[in-house]
């Protein structure tokens, strides 16, 4: 087990190094001299050269990369061109909002997805199974931003039950209650597709497990059907689904971009969209790095959880 953890940590580290190289190169391979852009078309050649040397842009690429990484490790990701503020604190504030949204959506989609999937499998081919299947079909085939807009029109504009946008009301003290009310619609919108996917996979996985001989063995021992589902089938289903759940967690993070735009959620996604439109490269670069790092971490945690709950991996 310890060896597995070390191996897994090393490979995560390597992926991170790869990601950082990519992010670094993309910036340096994009056409256009950043100094030229900064100083504008009227800059004198002497000034350009002086500034290039000052920024270290004449050094070989590996040297530049190492300097950038060591700064990044110290929390210095440069300054936003648009906001003229350090990138990292800006990103972190926004990332926190995204994390809140994605976590809420994960709670909704994982719990409901698993419950609906188990209920479908246990009531295989009965009415409730068909209803869940129909609902899942619907959820997957409708774009999230469209559902979000319908939600705004219905619950915010017509019924006035829920706020249409933002994380807190413009005025007044922030509170958990206010956050919850603002979170409800975006989180549900974001959760819909992963919930449907998880429900479908849970159903088929559960059916497969229920068809395995050890389930019959348990029944033959006199374990009641409901207990067999909880004590034997659900655990095996969940273990088989861990990888999918990890992937869905990553998808929630990525999907947050659309939902944040629709609901004006102050997350990293909407920040990135603004930054791209305004060519604010340090923000884009830092944002990609933060998102990629969180992907790698989700992956790592997924694998470690898998190893912790599945004895077959633990020993290997």
């Amino acid at each position, binding site marked *: 087990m310890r060896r597995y953890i070390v191996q897994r940590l090393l490979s995560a580290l390597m992926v991170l190094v790869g990601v950082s190289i990519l992010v670094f190169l993309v910036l340096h391979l994009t056409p256009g001299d950043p100094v030229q852009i900064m100083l504008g078309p009227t800059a004198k050649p002497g000034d350009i050269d002086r500034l290039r040397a000052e920024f270290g842009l004449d050094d070989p690429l590996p040297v530049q990369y190492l300097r950038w990484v060591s700064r990044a490790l110290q929390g210095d990701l440069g300054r936003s061109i648009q906001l003229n503020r350090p990138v990292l604190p800006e990103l972190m504030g926004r990332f926190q909002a995204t994390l809140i949204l994605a976590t809420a959506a994960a709670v909704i989609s994982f719990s409901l997805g698993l419950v609906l999937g188990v209920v479908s499998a246990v009531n295989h081919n009965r009415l409730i199974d068909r209803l869940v299947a129909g609902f899942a079909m619907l959820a997957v085939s409708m774009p999230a931003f469209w559902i979000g807009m319908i939600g705004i029109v219905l619950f915010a504009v017509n019924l006035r039950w829920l706020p249409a946008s933002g994380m807190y009301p413009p005025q007044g003290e922030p509170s958990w209650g206010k956050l919850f009310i603002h979170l409800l619609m975006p989180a549900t919108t974001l959760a819909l597709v992963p919930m449907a996917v998880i429900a479908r996979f849970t159903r088929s996985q559960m059916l497969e497990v229920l068809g*395995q*001989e*050890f389930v*019959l*063995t*348990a*029944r*033959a*021992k*006199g*374990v*009641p059907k409901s207990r067999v589902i909880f*004590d*034997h089938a659900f*655990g*095996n289903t969940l*273990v088989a689904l861990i990888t999918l759940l990890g992937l869905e967690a990553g998808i929630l993070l990525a999907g947050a971009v659309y939902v944040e735009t629709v609901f004006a959620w102050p997350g990293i996604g909407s920040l990135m969209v603004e930054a791209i439109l305004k060519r604010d490269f340090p923000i884009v670069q830092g944002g990609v790095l933060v998102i990629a790092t969180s992907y790698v971490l989700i992956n790592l945690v997924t694998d470690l959880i898998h190893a912790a*709950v*599945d*004895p*077959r991996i633990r*020993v290997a």
Partner: protein
Amino acid sequence: MQPEPILRVRGLKTEFQSAAGVVRAVDGLDLDIFPGEIVGVVGESGSGKSAMAFSILRLTPGKIVAGEVQFRGRNLLDLSEAEMERLRGDRIAMIFQDPMTSLNPLMRIGSQIGEALRYHMGLSRRQADGTAVQLLQSVHLPDAERRIHDYPHQLSGGQRQRVVIAMGISCAPDLLIADEPTTALDVTIQAQILNLISETRQRSSAAVLLITHDLGVVAQLCDRVAVMYAGQVVEQGPTTDLFANPQHPYTIGLLRSTPHGRRRGEPLRPIPGQPPRPGDIATGCSFAPRCHLVEERCHHQAPALLQLGGGRQARCLLREESAHESTP
């Protein structure tokens, strides 16, 4: 006079719905098992042996449409599901063919053995662990105290089948159903597991219903044999008698077609033809199309299970002359 059977199956019929229509896997099956004996069930693949076993425990995915399963005087088909659950694993236990798949990969084997003990005997987890150790010792698994903490993948196939047997006998059942318990194991392990089953029977006086393809195993281990064909028991009787003097043409064919059954020096002769496809409706004897002794009436008249004396029964019209009485 024979003692009362602990299991008395009469006219059992089990159907499956399949794409091709209704498949009657068990088709009017009669079977008796007496206390403490080992009864072998043999028959070609698809003859309904497993379907019968699962029907007795009411765990078949198919539908039991007719018949009686009398166990210690009660018809199991009349019991509620809750009453069946109290019986399963306690009075009737079942062990399966493949020890690789019949254990839960995520549960320690001690907990899996202890499960029946906790449900049926109300033992605590701790007590169940203690009993699990004793059970593992009784099936000769070395290092039992340590083994109860292992997961199934840490055991070999033979060791797992020992665990499965320990699980089966944990509540000292009156009847142990074993569906091809050695088919998935290699030959040297097979003999050990079979010895273990017969040893278990002697110690616990449980009756054993042993489903197998291997007539050699039957000859060695079983007090009586039931031969199944197309969802029916076509012949049953004491093992030595039945092997020495088979009465049903199918049994004769079966014995000639396997190395254990034929006389020394005789060549192996497979039974010509195919078993009926399940779902085919036969009016007469289901074996008639393949029978080397077939007569005209066999195609129209369904034979009853005839009592031939000496505890022997056969389902064949040609044996009517030697029958004492026929069961309805």
